[in-house]
């Protein structure tokens, strides 16, 4: 399975050791059969926590149940999840040039018309839509992660054309990356002081606090996902390439 990790480009789809082939087909099939029997046989707990959540939805300060669960009932999970994202970003970030500016505009010799047109049209729309999604998260489907993802999509679009160069190891970038975790922790611990136990939002301010956490989360997630993508980008012709390339080391 993992013993020999081959990375040559044109290797056959399936490594031919017959033994593993047959065995794994067998078991995969078996697994499928077993799980299907579970699903069929067991009525199980058909409503889960839905009724409980609907009762407490008013206390959570948001009306959208998913956001309520995510940011109020199980806020601790979300906090750790942001930490996970931070782990990966840390692992991938290059270790050099903290001093380069956070944001730089580069004059590009060869312009890619379609790309620049696309950027000009879609990027602003996406940003606006992301803002709406963030705001709507409280009462309609939407929220920090979706908005963050969208913004990251927009940033992917922007970098494709090498016009803008974001250096993720500059101090500013690092602060933004870490922003959501810091905010989350400070609010969480502060609430201990005020409300007695971790992450218990006061009824009056819970909606506001959740919104604050959501915005910071969106910013961090955007930067995180963008940096994930940028680490793979090798743009050939700009001086940034080499240091970016070196970043891959």
């Amino acid at each position, binding site marked *: 399975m993992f*013993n020999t990790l081959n990375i040559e480009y044109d290797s056959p789809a399936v490594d031919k050791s017959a033994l593993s082939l047959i065995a794994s087909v067998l078991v995969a099939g078996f697994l499928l059969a077993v799980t299907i029997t*579970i699903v069929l046989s067991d009525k*199980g707990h058909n409503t889960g*926590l839905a009724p409980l959540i609907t009762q407490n939805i008013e206390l959570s300060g948001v009306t959208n149940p998913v956001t309520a669960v995510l940011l109020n009932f199980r*806020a601790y999970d979300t906090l750790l999840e942001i930490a996970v994202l931070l782990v990966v970003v*840390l692992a991938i970030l290059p*270790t050099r040039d903290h001093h380069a500016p956070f944001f730089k505009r580069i004059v590009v010799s060869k312009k890619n018309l379609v790309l620049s047109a696309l950027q000009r049209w879609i990027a602003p729309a996406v940003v606006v839509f992301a803002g709406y999604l963030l705001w709507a998260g409280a009462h309609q489907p939407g929220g920090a992660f979706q908005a963050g993802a969208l913004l990251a999509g927009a940033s992917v679009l922007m970098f494709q054309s090498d016009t803008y160069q974001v250096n993720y190891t500059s101090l500013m970038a690092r602060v933004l990356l870490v922003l959501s975790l810091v905010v989350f922790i400070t609010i969480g611990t502060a609430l201990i002081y005020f409300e*007695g136990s*971790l992450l218990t939002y006061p009824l009056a301010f819970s909606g506001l606090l959740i919104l604050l956490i959501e915005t910071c989360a969106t910013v961090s997630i955007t930067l995180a996902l963008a940096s994930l993508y940028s680490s793979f980008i090798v743009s050939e012709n700009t001086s940034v390439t080499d240091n970016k390339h070196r970043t891959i080391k």
Partner: protein
Amino acid sequence: MNELSSSLLLPAIVFLPLLAAIIAFLIGRNQLQGRINICFSLAQFLLVVLTTLLFLHEQTYQSERYVIGGWGAPLGIDLIVDGFSILMIALTGLLTLLITLYSASYFSDKYSASEKSLRFWPLWWLLISGLNALFMSADAFNIYVCLEIIGLSAAALVALQGSRAALEAALRYLLVGLLGSLFYLFAIAILYRSHGTLDLMQIAETANHSFPDKVAMILITIGLLLKIALFPLHFWLPPAHANAPTPVSAILSALVVKASLYILIKFWFDVLGATITLGASQMLGALGGAGIIYGSWCAFRATQLKVLIAYSTVAQLGYIFLLFPLSEYSMGVSSFTGSASQAAVYFIVAHACAKAAMFLAAGNLILAQGNGEIAQLKGIAVREPLNVLVFAVAGISLIGLPPSAGFIAKWLLLTTAIESGQWWWVIVVIIGGLLGAMYLFKVLSLAFSTDPAVVESPTSKSTPQVSNVMTTVALILALITLALGFNAEFILNISNTVSEVSGI
């Protein structure tokens, strides 16, 4: 412990390392970095000691629940602390303090690994916070997220080295980690579907011999076995632990592997205890036994020092897996109580300290020697007497010879095996001890033999002198293993809080 549950101690244990990670990430690489991290580790250690003392002070030996967000079990997430978890947290605190001290000088400018320190420190603290979060969490999905934090940060730390072997080992470790976690997630989904809640205590109450619970238990077992690297599924551990930088391989072998074991024990005995069958526990025992033999054999044939120690981890894990068949008999109902659990807990603590000491000592030897080849270790006892002594003491504890904690653990294991009449485990343990002796003394005999060529001409390129901070840290760990060898009562008192606890 009411003031503990309402106070900020428990969550602080998780958040302090997170803050440390953030600060380490922000300040980047400068001289202060080492010192800041050391005081963070000191703070963490004090915090952990305070919590342990408070917990012990209670003497109620009941597990303490800490309700986050005030929502209560099914809806919100709770943190739960019982004897076993407080012991693991204390162990993590101790090892964090010592290994941070070690890595402060390991990643200092004296050695070539210094420019990696920017990436090392944040990942290190995230790993520690993941571990602490895991030991405290009482919620199934929360455990999944903690497992992920630990898995990803550990893989990133292994990849820190940058050499091809390290990167490949890290990639393999990561893929295995992800696969294991997916199996675990799938099991949670099934459990949620049939029990409607994610809280372990509530699942435990409604767990029965029903079909889905059994399948969930199977998936959890196979997923976590993959992450714990029990015998047949251990292929990823030796390269990962061998190629990681020394402090990382120390914490990996000592604690990270134990984290998934902690979860497996929790599910196996407390949460889904009802679904256990005799055949399954015997099978795990058998795999453990085979692991002891195979691990020691590969350790004996290893040519690299750190590969040898990694394989010895595989072997030592085999010992702990003997817990499953033994506790099955001794206590009738399979709950994590009785002498088998005490033996396993003591083994975990003894192995953690001994293995960490051994890896640090080996790291020092490799630094002094230049490369990790065992053959080149000839006559090193002359140049690095203290490190060889630490290596020997740690080895003695791993084999289970008297003055060390390993001996007490082996003693408890043997007594349980004999009491429960499963004499075949006795033979496995004894043979394991002998095989362990084989590979330890292979290294020691080389260390003691004076190769005339080596003694006269000290190694040509002046290898950096191993800083005495690193040696003293290794020595402290070795002394702890020896100290644990004497007053076994202290650890057993804490761990038998586990035995009184009914539920989790």
